[in-house]
C-alpha cells in the first residue's frame, strides 16, 4: 500500500468509504429483478399502464352502454358478438401498452442512463430480455383485471337489453384472457421497436405503422389477395384471439393468429438485440 500525502489547508475529514465484500455477479434473474425496479419507479411507464387499463375497461363498458341504448337490427343483430363489444378497448389499449414497452428502453437512451446500465451489465442483451420479461408479465398482470372488468361490467349492461353472453360460453374465456395476452405481446413489440430505434417518437410512429398502417394498406388491396393479406397483418392476426368465432375467410384461427403476432414481435426483438450488442452504446 503506498502512502499518499496531500496538501491540507485547514481541517480535512477523510472520506470514510464503506467496504463491500459480499459476492456479486450478474445473472439474468437479477437483471430481471432490476428491470422490475425500473419499471415500477418510472412514472411515464406507470401512466401508460394506467391509460391502457382505463382504455380497456372504459371503452368496453362505454361501447356496451351505447349498444344497449341503441340495440342493433337486422344483419348487424345476426352478426353481433357481445364479447367483442366488451373487448373493443383493446384497439386503443394496444397503443398505450406499446408505448409503455418502448419507453422502458427509449427513456434510458434519452436520459443517457443506458451507459450506466451497460456498465453494470456489459453483455447488454440480458437487459433487453429483462425488460421484455417484466413488460410481458406486468402488462399481462394489469390487463387481466382490466379485461375482466370490461367483460363483466359490459355484459351486465348488455344484459338489460338481452344482448349479453356469459363467461362460460365456448370461446369467451379464451377471447377475454387471450386479449390480455395480446396486450402483453404488444408491449414487448413496443419494447423491440424502442430498442431498435432508440427514440420514443420514432418507436411510437413505427408502432402505429405496424398495428394500424399495415392493416389499412392490406385492406386497400382489392379482391381476394387483399383479404388474405389482411389476415396476416400483425394486429389482425393478433386480435384473432379476441374473436369468439373467428371467420376463416377474414381471420386466422385464434392461437395461430396470436402466435404469428408473437412471431413478428420476436423478429423485431431479434433485430433490436443485434443492434444493441454490436453498436456503440
Amino acid at each position, binding site marked *: 500500500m*503506498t502512502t499518499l500525502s*496531500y496538501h491540507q489547508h485547514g481541517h480535512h475529514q477523510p472520506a470514510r468509504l464503506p467496504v463491500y465484500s459480499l459476492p456479486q455477479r450478474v445473472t439474468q434473474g437479477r437483471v430481471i429483478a*432490476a428491470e422490475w425496479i425500473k419499471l415500477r419507479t*418510472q412514472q411515464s411507464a406507470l401512466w401508460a399502464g394506467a391509460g391502457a387499463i382505463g382504455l380497456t375497461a372504459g371503452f368496453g363498458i362505454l361501447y356496451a352502454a351505447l349498444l344497449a341504448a341503441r340495440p342493433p337490427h337486422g344483419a348487424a343483430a345476426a352478426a353481433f358478438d357481445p364479447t367483442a363489444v366488451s373487448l373493443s378497448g383493446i384497439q386503443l389499449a394496444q397503443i398505450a401498452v406499446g408505448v409503455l414497452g418502448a419507453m422502458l428502453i427509449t427513456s434510458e437512451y434519452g436520459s443517457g442512463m443506458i451507459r450506466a446500465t451497460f*456498465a*453494470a451489465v*456489459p453483455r447488454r442483451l440480458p437487459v433487453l430480455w429483462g425488460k421484455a420479461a417484466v413488460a410481458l408479465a406486468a402488462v399481462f398482470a394489469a390487463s387481466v383485471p382490466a379485461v375482466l372488468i370490461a367483460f363483466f361490467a359490459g355484459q351486465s349492461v348488455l344484459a338489460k337489453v338481452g344482448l349479453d353472453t356469459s363467461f362460460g360460453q365456448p370461446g369467451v374465456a379464451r377471447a377475454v384472457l387471450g386479449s390480455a395476452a395480446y396486450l402483453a405481446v404488444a408491449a414487448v413489440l413496443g419494447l423491440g421497436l424502442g430498442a431498435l430505434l432508440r427514440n420514443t417518437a420514432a418507436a411510437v410512429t413505427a408502432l402505429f405503422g405496424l398495428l394500424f398502417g399495415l392493416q389499412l394498406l392490406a385492406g386497400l388491396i382489392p379482391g381476394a389477395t387483399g383479404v388474405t393479406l389482411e389476415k396476416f397483418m400483425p394486429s389482425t392476426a393478433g386480435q384473432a384471439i379476441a374473436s369468439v368465432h373467428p371467420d376463416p375467410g377474414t381471420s386466422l384461427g385464434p392461437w395461430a393468429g396470436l402466435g404469428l403476432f408473437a412471431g413478428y414481435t420476436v423478429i423485431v426483438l431479434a433485430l433490436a438485440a443485434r443492434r444493441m450488442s454490436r453498436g*456503440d452504446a
Partner: protein
Amino acid sequence: MIEIHELTKRYGSVTAVSGLTFTVRPGEVTGFLGPNGAGKSTTMRMIVGLDAPTSGTVLVNGKPPRAHAAPLRELGAMLDPRAVHPSRSACHHLLALARTSGIRRGRVDELIEAVGLAGAASRGAGKFSLGMSQRLGIAAALLGDPHTVILDEPVNGLDVEGIRWIRGLLADLAARGKTVLVSSHLMSEVAQTAHRLIVIGQGRLLADTTVAGLSAGHASLEDAYVHLTDDAVEYRAA
C-alpha cells in the same frame, strides 16, 4: 489496472483517438488531462466497454471490459452525472443498478449516506443540482466497491465541502490499492491530488509522467500543461 495498447477509435472519417498506449496502475491517483475534444471521454467510454475500439486493446484488471462476470466489482465509472431518469428517485436509481449484480440494499443505503445524499435520496433525481448529481454518480460508481475507478470531472459543480470530500475520497481509494483514473480541467486540484498524469491531445498521447515530472521547469502544473498542449487545443477563443 487499466492497460491500453495502440487504442484507436474512428467515427467515419473522424479519428477521435489514435494509437494510445498507457497503463494506469493501482495504488495511486492518475490524472487524465487534455483539451476539450482531445479524446478523453471517448477513451473512457472504451474502457467501460460502451464503445468498441476501431483497433487496439483495452484491458481492465486483465480482461476486456465486457468480459467481467461481476462488472461493478471490477470497474466503477462516473462518466456523466446527468445520465439519470428524471422521475426516478436517487435511491431507486442505485437500487436498480445494484440489483443487477445482487448487491444488497444495505450497500445502497450506506453509500447514499457516505456521499452526503441522505436527505435527498427519495427525491426525483431530475430535480438535483449538478453537485447532487455528481454525488449520485459517484455513489453509483462505488456500488460494487470496485478495484478500478474512473471519474470524468468529478469536482465539476461541487461546492468547497464537496471538493475537499472528493480530494479525500480519491486519496482513500488509492490508499486502499485501487486504480484511480480522474479526468479534470482544474490544474490546481490535479496538482494536489494526482501522482501520475496522462495527457492527451487530438487523440494522441502527449505525456505519461508524474506531476513533478511534468511541472519541472515551469512555474506551475498549469503552465507546464498549457505549454505541452498548446498545439493540440481544438477550441480556442479568437
